[in-house]
């Protein structure tokens, strides 16, 4: 079949695909945002002097990073209802599992960001009489957050791709839309190829943004 026919076919499916794309972006954005909040706490916790906090953070991070996201999604969507005794809406299950997953990866990014800040910054702040948490808040984290913008962008790209896994719980994001289309039309190559292109456009644009921010940060970071 010719490229013209393919384009025409994709054009007809465009409204459906656009809906899916929007939900994919929405899910990714929410997951990484919540993941950022979770990850900030977990990342700080990982560096805590308090053994209990440190262990909890380590278990969370290792468990999430050491198990497949697909299992985590099903654990929330299928497994959790067995425990709490009532079903969980697919959208909620998706947001919860993706955010918790993202949080563990962001935690490692935050931890590395904090550790990359020169020890002298902590000492200078503490020598003024600032407490440890004041120092974290006003000195360490503002500098760490600027440095982790590029790796956070990469995390966003990873999550954008991985969010396709929530298609298994019938949430109609981009991947699920494609499945629905090819089970009806029997033209899986056409639609899956189109979907690949859409993912590619999204990830490439974000990686361009990441590269741009890296360049700007390098200019700002000279001390």
């Amino acid at each position: 079949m010719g490229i013209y026919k393919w384009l025409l076919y994709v054009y007809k499916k465009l409204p459906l695909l656009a809906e899916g794309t929007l939900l994919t972006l929405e899910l990714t954005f929410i997951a990484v945002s919540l993941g950022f909040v979770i990850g900030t706490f977990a990342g700080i916790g990982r560096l805590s002097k308090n053994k209990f906090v440190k262990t909890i953070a380590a278990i969370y991070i290792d468990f999430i990073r050491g198990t497949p996201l697909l299992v985590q999604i099903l654990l929330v969507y299928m497994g959790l209802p067995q425990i709490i005794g009532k079903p969980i809406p697919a959208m909620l299950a998706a947001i919860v599992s993706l955010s918790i997953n993202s949080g563990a990866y962001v935690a490692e990014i935050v931890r590395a960001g904090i550790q990359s800040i020169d020890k002298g910054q902590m000492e200078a702040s503490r020598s003024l009489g600032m407490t440890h948490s004041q120092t974290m808040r006003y000195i360490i984290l503002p500098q760490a957050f600027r440095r982790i913008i590029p790796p956070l962008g990469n995390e966003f790209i990873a999550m954008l791709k991985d969010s396709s896994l929530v298609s298994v719980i019938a949430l109609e994001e981009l991947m699920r839309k494609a499945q629905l289309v090819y089970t009806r039309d029997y033209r899986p190559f056409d639609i899956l190829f189109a979907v690949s292109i859409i993912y590619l456009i999204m990830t490439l644009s974000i990686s361009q943004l990441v590269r741009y921010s890296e360049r700007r940060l390098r200019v700002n970071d000279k001390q």
Partner: protein
Amino acid sequence: MTSNNGKSDAVIETIGLKKEFNGIEVLKGISVKIQKQEVVCIIGPSGSGKSTFLRCLNLLEKPTSGQIFIEGIDITSPACNIDLIRTNMGMVFQNFNLFPHMSVIENITLGPRKIKKTPLQKANQQAMILLSKVGLKEKANSYPEELSGGQKQRVAIARALAMQPKVMLFDEPTSALDPEMIGEVLDVMKSLAYEGMTMVVVTHEMGFAKEVSDRVLFIDDGLVVEDNKPELLFQNPENPRTKSFLSKVL
């Protein structure tokens, strides 16, 4: 000064201060008293423990054993609120350690605003007074990256002074500077000394030690080898180790 258990009326007193790093003893029992308004320079070969000693005084390093009294308060006691003690002890570092994400004036006002809850306007006024004192009034809104090393260090001194400390600790404040910038920093420190600030200065600037200090401690291998007035210590060192060190640096 109020005394505690009759222990001391010195601003700073250490008793048998020891510090180990991974089983290696860096400080081997240092007992020193520093009085109000005294300017004490600490000299000695690198690796002798002089910086470690200074960093113990505000507990940036935790001593392994021994006691440190600041205005009679034992800061090695777990009950001591070290953050409160530190507000009275300014510290200046070899590598400046300015906060790169803040402008010069923000660097200086941060402590007063967050710790003493000084209102912004008042903190800014005080910061401008300090900046003119160190000769950098026009740099108030610059960022650290835009300053030379000497300017950075003068801002760092202003930042420490903004907390209105009773003691200033200097950890090799000119060692990271290009030679032509050392003078401007030493001049600021001199004027501070003449105003009566109590100062403890770890330094390699023998000229400064001779001219400004009331006392010089020579530390070698984790111990105070010699403790004397500068004119005596420099012209007539009693200990052979002091002699050999001075013959190398003077």
